[in-house]
């Protein structure tokens, strides 16, 4: 299944629930969806089409947060990334995909603590990487978090 066949399958199955398709090259594509459709899309791509879940990455776009779920089809070396935009940065929510695949277990914990994204349905969002005494509400990978620099002249 090459990238055009994969994109056609996804397009045919989901129809207007797909917002945008960016076929970047013969090996890379980015598909925009509504956040509420993420579980259905992930289930279709992972279980029905048999792609491998690579990882999810969140990005702070200043006025919104976006999550990219990356999937790989190894036999033809294509990587399809599903993009969900979370418009409300003060209270970003999206459904968990851990019900579809256990491989998202850690990355949702990480995105929760580094970006502040709530994964509805995931009741194990304990910190994974940050220390226990890290102040709550401070999300290091958001753009408004700036690492304080020390002035070595004062030392």
């Amino acid at each position, binding site marked *: 299944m090459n990238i055009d066949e994969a994109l056609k399958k996804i397009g045919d199955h989901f129809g207007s629930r797909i917002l945008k398709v960016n076929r*970047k*090259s013969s*090996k*890379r594509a*980015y598909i925009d969806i509504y956040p509420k459709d993420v579980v259905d899309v992930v289930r279709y791509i992972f279980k029905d089409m048999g792609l*491998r*879940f*690579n*990882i999810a*990455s969140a*990005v*702070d776009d200043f006025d919104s947060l976006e999550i*990219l779920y*990356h999937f*790989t089809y*190894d*036999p033809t*070396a294509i*990587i399809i*990334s599903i993009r969900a935009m979370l418009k409300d940065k003060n209270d970003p929510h999206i459904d968990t995909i851990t019900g579809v*695949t*256990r*491989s998202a*277990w*850690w*990355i949702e914990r990480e995105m929760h603590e580094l970006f502040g994204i709530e994964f509805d349905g995931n009741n194990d969002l304990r*910190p*994974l*990487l*940050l*220390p226990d005494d890290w102040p709550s509400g401070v999300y*290091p*990978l958001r753009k408004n*978090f700036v*690492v304080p620099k020390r002035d070595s002249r004062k030392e």
Partner: protein
Amino acid sequence: MSHKAHVPIGPYHPLQEEPEFYKLVVEGETVVDVDVRIGYNHRGIEKISESKNFDQSIFIVERICGICSSSHPVACVQAIEDICDITVPERALYIRSINQELERIHSHLLWLGLAGHFLGYNTVFMWAWKYRELICDIMETVTGNRQNYAMLKVGGVRRDIEREHVPYILSRLDELLPKLDMLKGAVLDDPVLAARLKGVGILTKEAAIDYAALGPVARASGVDIDVRRDHPYAAYDRVKWNVITQTEGDVFAKTVVRILEMYESASIIRQCLDNMPDGPIDSNPKEIPAGEGIGVSEAPRGECFHYIKSDGSNSPVRHKVRAPTYMNFPTFRETVMGQTVSDATIILAAIDPCYCCTERMLIVDTKDKSIMNVEELIRLSQEKTQRLKEKMGIK
């Protein structure tokens, strides 16, 4: 009468370096649950990368993990090159492959040594690490350093392999191969090791797919994936080599995969040195436009994944790094449940968690409040080997 004991797998031990914290819940001798708390090693690399330019990011990703320090830069530069389809000169592609395969041999030998130590085969530890020095010598000759090679740049490589170094590299490889044969024989033909490792810590194919396991961990369970063959990069599609898979999914299968991969790596290096064309090693790209790119490479532990988003400036807007162990770690929970405490170290080591986080283990017996540290856990493992030897009448 069974009692639940909590087994925290935590801090410091001379033989293992990376700090993670595992809590094993034990009933008697059997592990019934695992919890993990990492973060002792979290250095905020993704955030640092956003304040550096693209050339500097490559140096930072080298230091994500000591023994994947050529795989992460390869994936990182490929992600940047993917943004705007930068072509890389042929010679540079071959050099990238040679660098990565040398590292693969180095990493698997290192792992073999550590696994040997856990099982009480200290000679295997000493010899595997001694012959690892042959690879370190090649690396020092070619790149200038034993680790952290600083070979990669966007659009090519930074240093060439000189013609006069090639016979030296080949002679070291010739010296290494009989040693690999010896280590292979010592490990795979040993009946005690077979009794110790076969059937232990099995990861089924279905679980490997569900956890999206990678690298030798997946290949030992019959999942036939290898980035070098599936997403050909560098010079891997220009040389002949085999992907090694097994089906049993136990620790023995993972050992077999890693040992046989070393032979494939040696063959790839030789073919690359023979077929490498002359020519430039750098295509000198001048700027990176706005866009997104994904780069993947096969580290000794599995697929490294880098996603880079650029806004046309000199720095990445977002740099997502995913090391292979991130996907393999959770399989530890799957493979250690129901196993005995004396096998816990070797089951964790079999994932090859970026240089053994197995030191991060402590056992607390809630019954008598005694605490066992990791040395004692390793001693349990070594004692089990000794008991097996006695049972089989082997000295």
